[in-house]
């Protein structure tokens, strides 16, 4: 584990994550104090210059996002996305379990920057224990007076993947069906209950205290220049060490799997890696020497996404896996837009036909045509990204499909 670089998880298991007192003893809430003493514009500039980009998957510059929030709006909200619905991703849960106070501090820093005194944490429905932990952590911070006049409320999702999409998340907090809104207007202008809202991921917020404490230059100097800082990756599948690691963003995928992950279980060969969760592309062995930062992953046609790393050994049946994935998307499509509602259903149908050995090349052509339209025309990221596993495996593992078609 020597090569990990722990910033967010520096005090993991050394302090009680619920306790604000213990967090303060290791230097917590200094960043927020510093933020309070800074001019608002300087604070936003500091976050901008740190180069911190969204850790939820879209990779948008956090300070830039904050700067879009209208200054004169009376009510504004800070929303933390803890929906963490991508299968194989559990980094946000780990951050909460190891360092929940850093998340609260990060949200309060954002509140200071945009002029909001109300935050919401939207926690996925499958994490009731995290909700409990966070409520205790908020209570502890309140008792210590660490958050000042910044309030944080925890709201719980009901198990919909699409609610990880920021506007669907907002709809869900408002008590509506979890369906994405069209953009613009972006949440920064009209978000929760129609007022300016910043939605950031848990990991993004948790980076803020150390950026304020140690300075933007320090943060900008870690890892990849265009996507600086550390990233928590979560290993699943056929790796030896299926656990989480915090690494600088210029770390390469091969080292994640072979150095930290201990390689493939049972000494088998690696067939593919899926990075970023179920909507991520499949990466073949020859592309493993890629840095895990946002842009490098994008350059090989993949996406860093949430930082989930699913390792598949040589015995895995790619077509079977993608069939299961297509079933997942069929189940999770909210049904609002035509390309996704009907497309994910038909993708699953065709994938099952291929997997059952009943499909022809014509079916694969139809599938590729459908995924191209979904990618271009779907309303939100779900429908636009659902095609990636299909497209990337047809590209890199064509022989596996060829074996099954008639």
């Amino acid at each position, binding site marked *: 584990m020597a090569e990990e670089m722990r910033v967010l998880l520096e005090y993991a298991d050394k302090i009680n994550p619920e306790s604000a007192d213990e967090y303060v003893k290791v230097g917590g809430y200094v960043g927020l104090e510093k933020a309070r003493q800074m001019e608002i514009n300087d604070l936003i500039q500091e976050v901008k210059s740190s180069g911190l980009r969204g850790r939820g998957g879209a990779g948008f510059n956090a300070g830039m996002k904050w700067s879009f929030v209208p200054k004169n709006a009376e009510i504004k909200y800070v929303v933390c996305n803890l929906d963490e619905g991508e299968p194989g991703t559990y980094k946000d849960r780990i951050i909460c379990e190891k360092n929940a106070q850093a998340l609260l501090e990060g949200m309060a820093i954002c509140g200071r920057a945009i002029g909001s005194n109300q935050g919401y944490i939207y926690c996925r429905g499958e994490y009731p224990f995290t909700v409990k932990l966070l409520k205790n952590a908020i209570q502890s911070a309140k008792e210590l007076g660490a958050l000042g006049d910044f309030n944080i409320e925890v709201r719980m999702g009901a198990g*919909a993947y699409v609610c990880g999409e920021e506007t669907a998340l907002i709809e869900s907090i408002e008590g509506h*069906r979890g369906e994405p809104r*069209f953009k*613009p207007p972006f949440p920064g202008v009209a978000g929760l209950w129609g007022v300016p809202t910043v939605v950031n991921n848990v990991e993004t917020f948790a980076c803020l205290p150390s950026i304020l404490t140690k300075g933007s230059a320090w943060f900008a100097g870690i890892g990849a220049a265009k996507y600086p800082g550390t990233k928590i990756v979560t290993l699943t599948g056929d790796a030896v060490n299926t656990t989480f690691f915090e690494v600088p963003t210029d770390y390469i995928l091969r080292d994640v799997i072979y150095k930290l992950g201990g390689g493939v279980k049972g000494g088998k060969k690696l067939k593919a890696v899926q990075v970023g969760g179920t909507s991520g592309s499949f990466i073949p062995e020859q592309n493993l020497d890629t840095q895990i930062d946002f842009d490098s992953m994008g350059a090989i046609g993949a996406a860093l996404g949430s930082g989930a790393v699913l390792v598949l050994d040589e015995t895995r049946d790619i077509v079977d896996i993608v069939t299961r994935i297509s079933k997942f998307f*069929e*189940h*999770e*499509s*909210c*049904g*609002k*837009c*035509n*390309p996704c*509602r*009907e*497309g*994910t*259903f*038909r993708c699953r*149908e065709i994938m099952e036909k291929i997997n059952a050995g009943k499909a022809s090349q014509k079916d694969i052509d*139809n599938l590729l*045509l*459908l995924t*191209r*339209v979904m*990618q*271009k*025309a*779907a*309303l939100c990221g779900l429908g*636009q990204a659902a095609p990636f596993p299909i497209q990337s495996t047809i590209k890199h593992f064509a022989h596996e499909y060829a074996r099954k078609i008639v």
Partner: protein
Amino acid sequence: MIKLTVNGREIQVPKGTMVLDACQQAGADVPTLCYDPDLKLAGSCRMCVVEAKGRPNLMAACVSPAENGMVIETESPDVVESRKIILELLLARHKLECHTCEKDGSCKLQDYCYRYGVTDSRYAGQGAHFGMEDPNPFFKRDYDKCIICTRCVRVCDEITGAQAINVKERGHHAKIATVFDGKLDDSSCVFCGQCVMVCPVGALTSKVSAGKGKSYQTQNVLTTCTYCGTGCTFELNVKDDHVVGVTSVRESEFSPVNKGALCVKGRFGWDFIESKERLTTPLIRENGELRPASWDEALDYAANKIKAIKEKDGPDSLALFSSARATNEENYLAQKLFRAAIGTNNVDHCARL
């Protein structure tokens, strides 16, 4: 003003104009299914996708604000491909019985399939079948034809305010339903039929007009509803000299009072027109029997009786009870008649609850 180019034509539009309107201004006919100018935007059918130069994805024109310098193509190969596939996806879930469908000839799905040459769907397979038949006397609900554009949901919420229906379930299983998916009769539905009016396909049609004539077979006559004094405008659908239905005109120019909205009576209650029980001439009761009379005879008869009562027992022995089916002006004249000509203030009206 914002300058943009649509299909090679430079145009200027005011700030805040949506790309869809800009395209229309430039003479481009962009297809839409979920868009309705009177309702909140949904941006969900994706039929109106257009290509904006420099953007990786297509944009839904109805929900995208026009921006300075945009270069838009409304029928590029990518756009046409997407629209064709979207139509094929909709066809794959749509019960194709156009020959007996009430909407045949005025169905947007049919029109766009014709326009883009979509004869068949390569994605036809299994699919959810809803087969909803609702035992109400007014709407036929056939959700095997529904394309989930949600215009019915929005009109019910935004125009009628009944909020009787919404989307139930997720993904391909999504369907329009009342609360707990019960009958419309048990919901807050008032059977105004605004949903039938906005449905772009044959999922919602009138049971009262069923089988009586398709839209292209009828002649539509603009008229005013006689049910109350509100004065809603609608069109009587006439086929072979018989009224076979009522449809709305939504343009303010023709429908200044109701802009297409009607109530259950106006939209579905027109079968009295040819009812055998309908009175078509005044009747006078003689020796306990009613006999037909002319208007002159009936009015003279009534006037003489009123005069006689007034002379015998005084004007306050008479009273006027007028109707909400008459207009304000008619009601004004009626009370004037009683106050000025007959000389009583005994005036009342059925709509003074």
